[in-house]
C-alpha cells in the first residue's frame, strides 16, 4: 500500500468508526429494542419455549453481546494488518 503514514492512520480510523457504529447499532437492537421497547410485540412469538421478547431480555441479548465482541476482535485484527498499524 502506498499510503503515507498519516493517510493510513486516517483511513484506518474511518473504517474503525464505521465498524464500531454498525456493531453498536446491533448492540442497541438486540438489547434495547428486542428486550425492552418492543418486548410486548415480540412476546407474541414463541421461541423454543420462551416468549421471544423475554428470551432476548434474559438470554439472547447476552449471546448477542458476545458475538458482537467476537466480530469486533476479528475484524480489528484484520484492519490493523491491512493498514500496517498492528503491533510488532
Amino acid at each position, binding site marked *: 500500500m502506498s499510503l503515507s503514514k498519516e493517510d493510513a*492512520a486516517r483511513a*484506518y*480510523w474511518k473504517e*474503525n468508526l464505521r465498524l*464500531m457504529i454498525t*456493531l*453498536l447499532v446491533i*448492540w442497541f437492537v438486540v*438489547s*434495547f429494542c428486542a*428486550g*425492552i*421497547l418492543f*418486548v410486548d410485540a415480540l*412476546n407474541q412469538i414463541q*421461541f*423454543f*419455549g*420462551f*416468549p421471544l421478547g*423475554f*428470551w432476548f*431480555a*434474559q*438470554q439472547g*441479548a*447476552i*449471546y448477542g*453481546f*458476545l458475538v*458482537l*465482541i*467476537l466480530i*469486533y*476482535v476479528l475484524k*480489528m*485484527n484484520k484492519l*490493523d494488518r491491512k493498514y*500496517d*498499524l*498492528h*503491533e*510488532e
Partner: protein
Amino acid sequence: METQTLIYLMVGATFSLYIAIAIWTRAGSTSEYYVASKGVHPIANGMATGADWMSAASFISMAGIISFTGYDGSVYLMGWTGGYVLLAMCLAPYLRKFGRYTVPEFVGTRYYSQTARVVAVICVIFISFTYVAGQMRGVGIVFSRYLEIDINMGVIIGMAIVFFYSVLGGMKGITYTQVAQYCVMIFAYMVPAIYISILITGNPIPQFGFGDTVTGTDTSVLDRLNGLGAELGFTSYTDGTKSTIDVFAITMALMVGTAGLPHVIVRFFTTPTVRDARKSAGYALLFIAILYTTAPAVAAFARINLLTNVPGVAYEEAPQWIKTWENAGLIAWQDKNGDGVIQYGAGAPFAGAPQFTNERGANGERLISNAPTEAETELYVDRDIMVLANPEIANLPGWVVALIAAGGLAAALSTAAGLLLVISTSISHDLLKSNFKKDISEKGELLAARVAAGVAVIVAGLFGIYPPAFVAQVVAFAFGLAAASFFPVIVMGIFSKRMNKEGAIAGMAVGLVFTFSYIVFFKFISPELDTAEHWWFGISPEGIGTLGMIFNFIASVAVASVTKAPPEEIQHLIEDIRVPRGAGGAIAH
C-alpha cells in the same frame, strides 16, 4: 463427613490457595503493583475481570431478585453485561494504548489539567468505597451463615485475607488470585444449577432447561410459572411491572456505568498489547455470561419449586429447608388465620424484615413481633434463599453446600480486592506522586501504595462491621456517578479531538451535580416522594445516571465549542492512541 466439617475444609482449602498464590506472585515494582507489569494473558485477564466484576450481589442475590421480579430483573442481566461491548469497542483498546496506570491519570493527561485529575480521583474513591462496603458485609454474612462465626469476626477474617494478598501482591497478586476465585465461584454456581435443572426439566443445561417443559407435563417452565403465579395473585412472570422508560433508563445506566467503573477499566491496563485488551473484553464477557445466562434459569426453577411445594401446605409437613432457613432468619411464617397452613401470595405478609421473638408458635414455627398487613399472604422469603437454599431444595450432598459457601466468599473477596487496589493506586499515584511529592522514589511510591491499601482495607472493614444505614441505598450512586462522569469524559477524550479541558470539566461537573442531587433528593431528603409520579420523565434514581450522562455530553460539547481547541501535543496524543502500533513503547514513561 458432616456438612459443617466439609464447609470448614472447603473454605480453608480455598483460602490457603489464595494465600499461596499471593506469596508466589508478590509485586516488587510499581509497574507490577499497579498493572501486573502489563503481562497478563487475555484469558487470565478475562477470568480476573469476571471475578473482579461479579460481586457477592451477583453470586448470591441476583438470581433471587430475578426470581421475585421476573421480567423486571432483566435490567441487571442486560445492564451488567452490555457494558462490556462498550468497553471492548470504545474504551479498552485506546486506554491500553495510552499505557499508563490509572483512570484519573488518563483524564488528567488528556485534558492537560491537574484539576480534572483531582476531580477524577475523588470520584474514584467515592465510587469504590461505596462498593467495597457492601462486599465486606457480604463476607461477614457468608461466614456467619455457614461457619457459625459472628458477622464481625467474619469481616475481620475477610479483611485479614484481603489485606494479605492485596498489600503484598498488588495487581499481580490480585490478578492470579482472582483467576482462582473465578474458578471456585463458577464451579460453585454451576453444580447446583445443573442439578436443579435436571430435577425440574430433565435437561442438564440450565440455559436450555429454562425453555424446556416441566418433567411429567407438556407445559413449559415459563407457562407453568405464569400459571402458578396467576393462581396466587402474582403479576405475570414474563411481563413485569416497571414502566418501559424506567427499564430502559436503568439498563442504560448500568451498562454505561459498568463501562465507567474504574476497577473494571483498570483491568484492561494489564494486558501486553492492544490486541490483547480487545480480546480480554471478549473473554471477560464470556466468563461473566456463563453465570449471567444461568442465573435467570436458576431464578425460574427456584420459583417453580417454591410455588409448587409451599403454598397451601401445612407447616408441619413443609419441606425441611423451610425450617432450616427459618432458623437462619431468612424465612418467616406468620399464621394469620390460625389454620396451620402456609398461605402465600402477592404482597408483603407484614411490615419490614422479620423481628423474631424467642418463642415458638402452636405449629413449632418461630414467632415474630411484626404487625401483620391486610394481605392474605403469610410467608416472608428473603430473596437470597434462591441461591443459598438450592442445594437443600434439590437434595444435594453436603459438599455442594460447602462449595456455595466457598463460592460466595470468593465472589465477595475478589471484588473487594480489586476495589481496594484502585483506591490505593489513586492515592499513591494520582494524589501523592502527581500533586504533593513529585520527587518520590519508586520504592517510596510502592510503600505509599501499600500503606494506602492497608488503610483502605481497615476503613472498608469498619464499614462492614458498622454498616452505614445507607449502603443499600447508594448502589445507585456508584453506577449513576460512573455513568454521568467517567464514561462521557473518556469516550470524548478518545473520539473527539476538539474536546478540551473546559468542556470536560464542565461536563463532569454538570453530570455529577445533577445525578448526585437527584439521588440524594429521592433517597435521603424526601424518600416519601420516591414514586413514579414524582420522578423526572418517570425515571427512578437507579436509572438517572442515563440522564446525567446525556447532560454531561450536552454541556461538554456546548462549552468546548466556544472555548479554544486543545493544544497541539494533545491532538498528537489522540492520534497516537487511536492506532495500536507502538503500544509496547508506551510502558516506558
